[in-house]
């Protein structure tokens, strides 16, 4: 009878939801935090219970096996041993979870750093005033080599010889998730104001990015930006 397998179907559905959220989803996007997976499993469980209790027959199909398992009615052989194991393990598991929740953490607190926080208003939508000519790009590459490559690397990949001790590491411009997603005006802000120009979400206290406005004129910064796009093979993001 189809109703009698409802508990099994529910269990399989929960397991499938867990496997998809925990293992399959990270293959295509960022992993979900365990708290969110818990929430989805909770919602799935509620859905199963609501569906399983729509009629008296389906309620029996959903809860009957649970009830018989708990009471031990008609259970023998391997299932009897399984029942005993579950009844013993459940309190131990609750105890372990309680202990784990109270014991001091050995890991540092999570760092919810925003990699590309919002820039101040005066830096939004600025156009690069320097003409994008081969000469200016060439000059930008020279400036990049002198000022930026020790950290961001001669190949624009964040693998410069001075990068190893910094946390967070210097940005990898070749990665499609960095400057390819940003407008030139954003880079202008980040280079001009440096790490200490970030807002609190960007954790400015950790950034080793110099505040280049104290050393470089604005047109040099714009030329460096052109060099970073040319060298990394990306184009600045535009609104068009």
């Amino acid at each position, binding site marked *: 009878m189809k109703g*009698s*397998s409802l*508990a*099994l179907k529910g*269990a399989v559905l*929960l397991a499938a939801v*867990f496997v998809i959220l925990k*293992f399959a989803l990270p293959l295509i996007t960022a992993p979900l935090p*365990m708290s969110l*997976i818990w929430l989805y*499993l909770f919602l799935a469980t509620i859905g199963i219970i609501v569906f399983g209790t729509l009629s008296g027959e389906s309620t029996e199909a959903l809860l*009957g*096996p*649970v*009830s018989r*398992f*708990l*009471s*031990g009615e008609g*259970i023998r052989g*391997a*299932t009897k041993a*399984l029942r005993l194991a*579950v*009844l013993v393990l459940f*309190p*131990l*598991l*609750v*105890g372990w*979870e*309680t*202990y784990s929740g*109270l014991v*001091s953490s050995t890991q540092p*607190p999570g760092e919810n750093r925003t990699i590309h926080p919002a820039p*101040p208003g005066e830096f939004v939508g600025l156009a690069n005033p320097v003409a994008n000519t*081969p000469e200016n790009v060439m000059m930008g*590459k020279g400036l990049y080599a002198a000022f930026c490559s*020790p*950290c961001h*690397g*001669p*190949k624009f*990949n964040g*693998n410069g*010889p*001075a990068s*190893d*001790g*910094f*946390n967070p590491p210097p940005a990898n411009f070749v990665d499609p998730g960095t400057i390819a997603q940003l407008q030139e005006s954003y880079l202008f802000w980040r280079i001009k*104001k440096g790490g*200490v*120009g970030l807002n*609190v979400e960007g954790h*400015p*206290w950790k950034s*080793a990015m110099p505040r280049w406005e104290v*050393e470089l004129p604005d047109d040099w910064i714009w030329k460096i930006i052109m060099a970073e796009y040319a060298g990394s093979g990306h184009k600045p993001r535009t609104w068009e």
Partner: protein
Amino acid sequence: MKTVPSGRALAALMAATMGVLWGTPAPAQESVVVRVKLIQGEVPTDPLSPEWEKVPATEFPMSPQVHWQKRILQTTVKSITVRGVHNTKQIAFLVEYADPTQDPADAAALEFMVGEKKAHFAHGQPMAQVEGGLVNIWYWRNDTPGAADMSAQGFGTLKKQAQQDVQAKGVWRPDKVKVKHKERKLNVRKDPKGEPMKDPKTGDPLFDEETKVVEEDVTGVWRVVFTRSLTTADKDDVQIQPGTFPNIAFAVWDGKKLESGDVKEAGSQKAITSWWYFNAEPPTDYSIYLYGLMAVVLAAGVEFVIIRKVKKGQPV
């Protein structure tokens, strides 16, 4: 009428539940935390004390200081190893690094944030959108006995505190060690004929990057121990609470005298890290075992009541 055995359904349900409860093993944590072990008795102040061998070591790669002027692009020290112990009253950090020469101006420093306010790792320099705090710097130099307990909140503000709470001792020995570090090379890309290749659009020569970890033999190791009470009465000092994860940063200077008469690394020219963490192991709190046991008893009691009600046919 075919029925599914309740055992199979529940086994599947149990497997799903166990999977959720246990999750999957967390990925290996990077070495970002100095584990400051809780010990009985006095903390070792001697850098050569065998007690240090019992303590886990954490290695931190170093960068040349390129954040502000005056910069340096290459430093002698590529990485440092740090260990820590405390006894709930005193804390000691051992900093070890390879340096082939023992020089009067060789130096090392630890840096901490003070209080709740975040401070920039570069001497607590001001931040545009965040009100920053003070940093506390523990500084040791080979030609100066002890240590300097210092404060800073921005470049040019570094000063020795009125109340000196830090002790330090450094020992250099000609030990032979192997130092691993990354070596990066740019190789000219060549075509099958062996001719250098150029970018067809720009005409720029093309290069390939080669990064490998190399092992270098170095004779000479500095071992420096910094010691202080976990807490002090000085408001400009870092106050250390076991069980928390305060930030820590490191700096070392190779004080070798060059032929020009200049010191190789001095002032802002040094090897540094930005912020990492340390954790002073908290004393064991036995009450958590009691709470765990109480949870076991409570869960078993609830389980017992439910089974009894189910057996009697009562609603749960």
